């Protein structure tokens, strides 16, 4: 056995000792290559989700039905762009560039949350997304505040503060619609019907179908499983649905005393995999829109770089 190998064993031991003590792993620390890869994939997907997520909501800024709602929605979409920015920076700290991540997104090599491949058809979808989609994201993100990689954890702390506001504004939109005219209430119920199941899918495959998950928990990247988080989300959300007089679109929803939570119906996993594999209703349009604005922005980025280069040259001269 050579000394290099010994060193690596020592490094792994140190790394695992840190995790055992719940200490953060920082960019300058040694980390196993697989840990780095796992995190780059997870953080960049998370960043892409924030960015692609701007599209379905951005779709309604110009049509929001009141000035207050318009300003809140615009602020929310701007927040999501900010989340994307923190997360790209966190991923960059592991040695991948923004250009590379964007390239992976545009070519389909990197995924983003499938929820954003569903269309936003009515104003009530702004309520359903804030309430359910941001609500589901919070379950995950609250857990990730304690993730083992320092920059990711700190990005999550900042993001979570804004997410709870996103969720509240969404639920408020739904509350007002549900208490409004029959047509408004119908709009709210229809949005709930369309977003309920895709929101449950946001937590990912069932634990037994999710092999990466066990490793992520061992590395303390994740601290709870997909099914645990999904159950918590259902437990939190069903009473909120009932409180505003809407109906959960699942006939199998039933309180279960023994597990102190709700039983719920089976997710349509065929639909889940169809969307993951790129055949959801909006997969192609979301990426096409992203590529279009990136390409249309190319000359702007070139101009900014060219100007900056001239300034630097003048300074040096």
């Amino acid at each position: 056995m050579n000394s290099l190998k010994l060193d690596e064993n020592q490094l792994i031991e140190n790394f695992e000792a840190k995790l055992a003590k719940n200490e953060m792993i920082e960019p300058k620390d040694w980390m196993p290559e697989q840990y780095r890869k796992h995190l780059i994939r997870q953080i960049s997907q998370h960043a892409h989700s924030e960015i692609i997520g701007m599209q379905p909501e951005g779709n309604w800024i110009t049509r929001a039905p009141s000035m207050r709602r318009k300003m809140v929605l615009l602020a929310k979409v701007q927040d999501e762009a900010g989340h994307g920015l923190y997360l790209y920076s966190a991923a960059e700290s592991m040695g991948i560039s923004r250009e590379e991540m964007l390239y992976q997104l545009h070519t389909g090599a990197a995924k983003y949350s499938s929820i954003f491949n569903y269309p936003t058809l009515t104003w009530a979808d702004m309520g359903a997304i804030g309430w359910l989609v941001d609500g589901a994201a919070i379950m995950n993100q609250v857990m990730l505040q304690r993730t083992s990689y320092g920059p990711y954890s700190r990005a999550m702390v900042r993001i979570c503060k804004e997410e709870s506001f996103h969720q509240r504004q969404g639920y408020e939109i739904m509350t007002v619609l549900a208490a409004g005219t029959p047509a408004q209430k119908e709009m709210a119920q229809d949005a709930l019907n369309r977003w309920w199941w895709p929101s449950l899918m946001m937590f990912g495959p069932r634990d037994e179908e999710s092999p990466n998950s066990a490793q992520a928990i061992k590395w303390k990247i994740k601290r709870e499983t997909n099914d645990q988080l999904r159950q918590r989300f259902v437990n939190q959300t069903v009473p909120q649905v009932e409180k505003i007089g809407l109906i959960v679109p699942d006939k199998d929803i039933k309180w279960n005393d023994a597990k102190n939570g709700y039983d719920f119906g089976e997710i349509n996993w065929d639909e889940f995999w169809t969307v993951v594999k790129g055949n959801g209703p909006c997969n192609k349009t979301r990426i096409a829109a992203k590529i279009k604005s990136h390409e249309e922005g190319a000359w702007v980025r070139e101009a900014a770089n060219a100007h900056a280069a001239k300034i630097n040259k003048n300074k040096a001269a």
Partner: protein
Amino acid sequence: MSQNNSLFNYILKIADNQLILGHRLSEQSSKGPFLEEDIACSNIALDLIGAANSLYIYAASIQGENKTEDDLVFLRSERDYKNVLLVEQPNTDFAFLMLRQFLFDTYDFYFQQALLNSKDETLAAIAAKTLKESTYHLRHSGNWMIRLGDGTTESAMRLKNAMNQLWCFIDELFEQDETEIALVAQGIAVDSNAIKAQFDNHVASIMQNAGMDIPTNIFMQKGGKQGVHTEHLGFLLAEMQYVHRSFPGVKW
């Protein structure tokens, strides 16, 4: 026209400019050339719409009859909107939309600065808040003028094209009707003739840094302040108002 009426109309003119320009910029949300710029533009759109909102709330309070800012935004039609033609021009490329921002930002910065001295305390207070934002907006769009003008052959050409398309809307910014002149005399409204020189100087100095010529011999278009708009405004309002108008009188 009664005193209240002319003040009401004056406030709407200011607010409509901010709202329509903010709307145009908000159409670009998630479509920026890069993420940081996308955030900056959403932020500016939000400032503009927020400033408009404060003014509509004030206008609604003068109108009485339990009117709200939403009535003024969602229930007025093309001929009732009094924004200048410049701000309703549809987005084409980044040079066009950033020049549109820059020309308005320059006007708006000096306008808000002058409005600080209005004898109408509410208008002066709103101007104080808006001026902080306008200062940032003007720096942002002014920097882009220089980057684009100085950047590449393509960016300079695009900026020049935009200049040729937008310059015809400049004079309208400074146009005043009789009721406005009366409000100026009372120390309430801004005398836009008095800020024209500041506007010209700032635009000239930025454009000189950008290596851009200012077009000459361009016929000046007007009409927005009288509610005679370009054909673009109707589509903008149709999109903005349709949900609100589809459900009359409900809460959102």
